[in-house]
């Protein structure tokens, strides 16, 4: 594996020697719990896959309250666990203090940047993946109208939306993109009923492809699209199988890969790197899913155009705007 | 009467004992009740009458002793067994389904088979028969809640008879009845006795014992102190047996020396939250140095009258204290009433006069707790002052046990009432409102309480006394107003009226100008 950017690679690799026997990696899930059918669960799958491949064991914990974030980090660090992965941006504050107190322990945080010498901050170029599925959506659409249903209205999800719209407009500058966010709180990640309602509303306005970035809410989005005979686009993991023939593709965000890599790099014989770890198209951290379930929906011509765009993005010929770089989207 | 003694007694109890923790409620009680007689059981509150009857009816299990019914030893583990043994019970508080008809209540729990029809038909026939036989007339199709308490009581008796009870236990049966209803009840009981039924009547009213029973047992502190033929005894002797010392049954009092009008009530009207008119224009006056009695069957507006005067009920009309109008348009005026010189011994000390979970010293300031003598700096209660205050009052009113830290509920009814009286009387009011001064109070304490009330009158205070006990009204008051259905049915000089006339007024059968 290669990484796009590596900053501050000054982590003390020697640290591993002392508690090597105890140095099982550890993972701390967010308050949603590891079986949230979304983000945490993907992280869990990555950890499981690492355990299977390497034959190693790891520690994990789910939390009950905010105050436990720091506590859990400390406990694992004190117990000699290394590396320690925290899943979710909410851990940033806790990690900032704990990472300083345990300079010899490696930490990784997903979806957030914590600028400490022993912390790997894994972030994804969701806008790039969303750009590609946006292109596919525009090519598959007969009406020239497509939809986007987000989960909780946070900058991260707007980043998805912005990349998606750019992809759509790249194919069909005159296309219309309907956008809705499910809500403003954490419940928005798990409200399939509302997700379905929003999707039906968009379909009623003429949308025939709807992309979701809404966690558990997305099930309702895909269901509604399939029920109406339209197309949905999945997110995070490959969701093509959920409604075969009705899911155009899925925007892959490989949290599992991030966890897998962190475990692998941080354990014996691995090559840990701290700093930003941006997973984008080049590293297959994001992408679009093709399998037998959607083979009939995506023609070879469409794949060819998307692959070309992908190569251009990697090569820097196409610049997809990242909403979070300036909290603005030029096409919206 | 005049049956041979060879017949086995209907009920015979031998050596019954029952204790609740350290309290011995029944101690080695033996009693024998002849078949076809009315047997009275008297005793003060807490003497163990109700416990004994509960054992007989299967609510409690005796610690030791035996029960013989008609000469046969019988175990009564529950009320089903009691019914099977031919025992029926009429409770003080009726156990009727309010929105069922008489007939439905009678068969309830004694239905035969799944279909109600045959049971009802059978019951109807039986009801007609019983009504003729015992003067137990009740409309079988009337709904319970539309019946007066006298009729509801008859339904309870019918229920027992329908279950073929030969032995009938009545617990304080006249507590809620007018004198004429009580007389009717006694006629029914005599009829039942003459037909061979055995009746046990628990009461604290000595007059009724003398009036209706054949034999009477007296209980005191869990023990049976005497069983005598009623004809061989008299109320004074019974009272002495109950209390354990000589008791003055009549109140000694001089004629009233009435002064100026202190309390003036004009056209008082109250409509309750359900829209029912409770007071329909009440007017009266109370002068200094006299006791005005308010007689009447419970529930004819007396409670509402006391609430308004006591400052926790709303009304229209006017109330003047020494010529100055007081606010009756809003509730929560208790403090202003007390400041205006009105003290109030409420009729329901359990729910109004006392906080049962409060210690005596806390109760002794209740309603006056804002007075400076109980308050220290910073709004804190002056516990030491309150304790001192209570110890003094307990001594002067002979409250036992004289422990100010005991909760109100740990005192007997009489001593609870004395706590309230001590609190209200020692506040030295101009006007004392007093409701049911001796309800649930033992005879010994009644004497004391009556003396206190008369003494207050003689000190020139105006006293408004509400009581459902005609004896009390007749022996204590100077004037009496009878309330019926929210208005005053008549007013009399106590010395110039009698029980019969008041009874008619109470029943609403005689309207007399005030």
């Amino acid at each position, binding site marked *: 594996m290669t990484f796009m950017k590596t900053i501050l690679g000054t982590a003390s690799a020697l640290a591993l020697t002392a508690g090597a026997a105890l140095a099982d990696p550890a993972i701390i899930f967010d308050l949603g*719990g590891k079986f949230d059918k979304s983000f945490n669960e993907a992280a869990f799958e990555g950890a499981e896959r690492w355990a299977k491949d390497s034959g190693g064991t790891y*520690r*994990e*914990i*789910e*939390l*009950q*309250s*905010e*105050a*436990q974030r*720091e*506590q*859990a980090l*400390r*406990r694992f660090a004190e117990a000699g666990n290394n590396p320690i992965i925290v899943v979710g*941006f*909410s851990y940033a*504050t806790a990690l900032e203090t704990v990472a300083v*107190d345990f300079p010899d322990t490696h930490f990784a945080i997903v*979806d957030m940047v914590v600028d400490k010498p022993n912390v790997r901050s894994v972030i994804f170029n969701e806008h790039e993946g969303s750009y590609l599925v946006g292109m596919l959506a525009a090519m598959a659409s007969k009406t020239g109208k497509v939809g986007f249903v987000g989960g909780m209205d*946070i*900058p*991260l999800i707007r980043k998805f939306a912005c990349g998606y719209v750019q992809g759509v407009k790249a194919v069909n500058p005159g296309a219309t993109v309907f956008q809705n966010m499910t809500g*403003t*709180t*954490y419940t928005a990640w798990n409200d399939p009923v509302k997700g379905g309602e929003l999707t039906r509303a968009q379909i009623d306005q003429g949308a025939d492809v709807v992309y979701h970035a809404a966690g558990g809410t997305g099930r309702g989005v895909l269901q509604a699209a399939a029920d109406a005979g339209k197309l949905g686009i999945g997110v995070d993991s490959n969701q093509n199988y959920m409604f075969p023939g009705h899911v155009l593709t899925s925007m892959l965000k490989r949290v599992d890969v991030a966890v897998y890599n962190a475990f692998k790099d941080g354990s014996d014989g691995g090559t840990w790197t701290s700093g930003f770890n941006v997973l984008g198209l080049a590293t297959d951290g994001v992408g679009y899913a093709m399998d037998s379930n959607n083979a009939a929906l995506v023609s070879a011509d469409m794949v060819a155009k998307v692959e070309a765009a992908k190569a251009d993005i990697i090569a820097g010929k196409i610049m997809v705007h990242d909403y979070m770089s300036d*909290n603005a989207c030029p096409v919206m | 009467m005049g049956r041979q003694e060879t017949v086995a007694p209907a009920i015979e109890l031998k050596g019954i004992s029952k204790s*609740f*923790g*350290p309290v011995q409620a029944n101690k080695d009680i033996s009693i024998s009740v002849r078949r076809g007689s009315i047997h009275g059981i008297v005793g003060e509150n807490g003497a163990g009458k109700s416990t004994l009857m509960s054992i007989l009816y299967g609510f409690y299990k005796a610690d030791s002793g035996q029960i013989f019914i008609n000469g046969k030893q019988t175990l009564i583990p529950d009320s089903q067994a009691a019914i099977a043994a031919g025992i029926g019970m009429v409770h003080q508080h009726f156990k009727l389904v309010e929105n069922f008809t008489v007939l439905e209540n009678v068969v309830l729990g004694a239905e035969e088979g799944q279909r109600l029809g045959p049971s009802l038909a059978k019951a109807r026939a039986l009801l007609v028969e019983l009504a003729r036989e015992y003067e137990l007339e009740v409309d079988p199709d009337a709904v319970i809640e539309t019946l007066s308490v006298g009729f509801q009581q008859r339904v309870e008796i019918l229920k027992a008879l329908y279950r073929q009870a030969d032995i009938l236990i009545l617990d304080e049966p006249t507590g809620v009845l007018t004198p004429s209803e009580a007389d009717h009840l006694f006629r029914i009981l005599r009829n039942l006795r003459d037909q061979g039924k055995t009746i046990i009547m628990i009461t604290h009213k000595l007059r009724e014992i003398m009036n209706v029973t054949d034999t009477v047992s007296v209980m005191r502190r869990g023990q049976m102190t005497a069983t005598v033929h009623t004809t061989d005894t008299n109320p004074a002797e019974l009272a002495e047996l109950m209390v354990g010392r000589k008791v003055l049954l009549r109140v000694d009092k001089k004629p009233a020396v009435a002064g100026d009008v202190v309390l003036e009530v004009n056209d008082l009207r109250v409509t309750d939250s359900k829209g029912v008119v409770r007071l329909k224009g009440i007017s009266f006056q109370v002068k200094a140095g006299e006791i005005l009695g308010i007689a009447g069957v419970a529930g004819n507006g007396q409670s509402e009258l006391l609430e308004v005067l*006591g400052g*926790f009920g709303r009304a229209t009309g006017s109330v003047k204290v020494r010529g100055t109008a007081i606010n009756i348009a809003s*509730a*929560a005026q*208790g*403090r*202003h009433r*007390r400041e205006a010189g009105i003290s*109030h011994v*409420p009729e*329901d000390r359990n*729910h*109004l*006069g006392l*906080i*049962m*979970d*409060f210690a005596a010293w806390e109760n002794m300031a*209740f*309603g006056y*707790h*804002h007075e400076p003598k*109980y*308050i220290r700096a*910073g*709004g*804190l*209660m002056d*516990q030491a002052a309150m304790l001192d205050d209570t110890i003094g009052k307990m001594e002067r009113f002979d409250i036992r046990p004289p422990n100010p830290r005991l909760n109100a509920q740990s005192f007997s009814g009489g001593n609870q009432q004395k706590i309230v009286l001590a609190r209200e009387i020692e506040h030295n009011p101009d006007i004392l409102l007093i409701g049911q001064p001796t309800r649930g109070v033992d005879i010994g304490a009644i004497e004391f309480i009556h003396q206190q009330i008369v003494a207050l009158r003689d000190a020139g205070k105006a006293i408004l006394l509400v009581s459902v006990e005609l004896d009390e009204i007749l022996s204590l008051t100077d004037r009496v107003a009878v309330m019926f259905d929210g208005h005053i049915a008549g007013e009399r000089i106590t010395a110039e009226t009698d029980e019969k006339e008041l009874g008619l007024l109470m029943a609403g059968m005689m309207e007399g100008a005030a």
Partner: protein
Amino acid sequence: MGKLPKWADYALIPFLNVLLAFFVSGLVVLFIGEDPIKAMGIMLKGSLGSPRAIGYTLYYATNFIFTGLAVAVAFHARLFNIGGEGQAGVAGLGVAFVCMYVDWPHWSLALPAAIIGAALFAGIWAAIPAYLQSKRGSHIVITTIMFNYIAAALLVYMLVNVIKDPGSMSPQTRAFVPGSVLPTAKEMLGWIGVDFPRSPINISFLLAIAACFGVWILIWKSRLGYEIRAFGHSESAAGYAGISGFKITMIAMTISGSLAGLMAINTVMGEGKRLVLDPVEGAGFIGIAVALIGRSHPLGVFLAAILFGMLYQGGFDLSFDMPKVSREMILVIQALVILFTGALENLVRMPVTRLFLRFTKGAA
């Protein structure tokens, strides 16, 4: 029936209840194939075994003391304040306003202001259901529950639309300036040269102890407390005595709400240093159990709150050291404690009462 001596009522029975709850919890632990004795040991060690463990235990206990006192005060007026959750949430807003819109130079100035802010917001939030109950007859249990939802919605609205930190992913405020952050036990003990590890326990714990004492004075020593208890024991008798039910309901609920609100000082100003979407995390409901177990007495509430603090913190260690014990299992154990100490209280009380009666009778 006879009565139990006070010590049995306040100490023995709750103790037996808790014991029984742990016994059943042990069976549950056994059922999933772990050693219950070992689990018990982990929980004890995890909650009291080290200064840091104690710090966390007392941090949680601080929340439960406030919400438990809140329920207790209302309960003395026979009012069931189920709304601690919402009242504390709204108080979080109050604390956040105080801490965000004034750049406090020092926490000792920020704290009194935050107390006022928290008490004011939560007190008003509790006073509305009190008003609805006494003037409109809406049952306070229903209204306080509904107000929990309204509070949650209000918090969401404010955090998303009004006071959100623009740079943040989650709906939360920006971090408070250092002058608005309460000193932790580590700092405070550091002033006197004692080394204490990092943990979220902060000066709010002392505030909670003061609140216990204040509630004791209020309920058992003050005239207002006398009236509150009288009203609680018998509304009709209170009316007779001239105590206004409306006044007592309003005052008792306002005090109750304010106490619940003070827990926001602990979580928002002490631990989070910012307002997050759910600053209460169920402590409002735990407060009901705490008041129940503590017999609505401040000392009982204090001890029960410590017990629940131990359950929270020990539970965390249990799931940490025994991965088989999931966080749902911890919830089950907490629920069992509530069940046995609250709902099934008579299970223990009746046999104990009988035992006492037999004993006292034998002695007599």
